[in-house]
């Protein structure tokens, strides 16, 4: 989401949401690597924090995906920048 370019890019809203979901997934993957390191360094507390963070992200991803699934198919019935409805 590049704020300098365009504040609202409605026609790309689902693509952007997909990007966001993907970014969260990547974050989960890097967290796994982090946890392995933390485990090697005996940081149980930090691992516990990562687990909470992970649960939060997983919930978020889930909600975003539900949202996308619910609205993406109905794209044309919603607000669209390009096709001006009368």
């Amino acid at each position, binding site marked *: 989401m590049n704020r300098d370019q365009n504040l609202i890019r409605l026609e790309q809203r689902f693509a952007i949401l997909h990007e966001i979901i993907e970014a969260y997934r990547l974050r989960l993957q890097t967290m796994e690597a982090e946890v392995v390191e933390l*485990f090697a360094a005996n940081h*149980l507390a930090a*691992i516990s924090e990562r687990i909470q963070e992970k649960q939060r992200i997983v919930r978020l991803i889930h909600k975003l995906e539900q949202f996308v699934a619910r609205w993406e198919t109905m794209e044309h019935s919603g607000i669209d920048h390009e096709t001006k409805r009368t």
Partner: protein
Amino acid sequence: MKRPTYTLSSLIKKVFRPGERSLPRHEIKERLQQFLTAYGYELDSETALAKILQMKQSPVRVGHTEAIIELTYQPHQLFDLAYRFLRDTHTPKKFEQIVPELRRQTQFSWNQVTRLLELERDPRFVQYQGDPRWFLAEWKVANDHVYDFMRTNGLRQISLRSLAYFLEHEVGISLREELFLPEADDRFQLEGESLMIVEEAADTPPAMDGHDSLQQAHGPEEHPPMPLEGRAEAAATVSPEWKTKQESIEEEIFVNTLETKSTAAEVSQLLRQALGRLEERNQQMAAEVVSFFQQSNLQAIEELMQEKHKNEQIVQGLRQLLTMTDEQ
């Protein structure tokens, strides 16, 4: 130079240590390279691995990512029965000899047994090159011991029966526990009941401990084998001598030195094995942590951490012991 040599698909089985089901590709390549060099293969591990992966009944396959290689073996009671059959009889068997036994013990048809029993996949079974028989991977090969024993004592020829006796009483190896495969080894020549050794041009480096499978078939550089006539001649010229030599064996001398040396070496080897095992477990734990993390199971991670802590202490202790053993 012919030594008992595992086939490629058996070699890859030895690469996996007991309990390991999958390994990172680089780890496999590293270990495989050691085995390949030790067994005199002129292949690099990359090519060998590619070859093995392409085999029809390959014991390994690429895991969920290219970086992981895993065993394809799926447990089935037939494998266990075949394993028990070989273990109990303590004799290598051909596939055709195993099938009837399994049919006797189970309800499976001949077709089912031959289809299900893919010994190529089970890491407990191995084959040597040029030998259709199946061996258990846990069996040790006594060839190096026999060769060393005969050379140390200047024996060129010995009957198989007295060899078994000497090995058991002087070296402490029972041929009932270890296998002796003279046919697959060009250091030996069998004529009826009597066994002859063929001298090599240079000394083989003394194996630190022949129990290590890596070293068993380990020979030095390539030595051109003696021409056949030369062998027979050598055997003929020395055969009158060996009898007197055999009688004059100074038992105490070689028994004692050999035993203390090999015990210390064995202990140090066992310690190293234990260290290796703990190291392995350490790597396993890293994988487990990720899976517990995915399940948000903090308690399991905590237990794992305790185990790790304990293992680290053991490693430290073992290292100290090892330095002590090595210094002696």
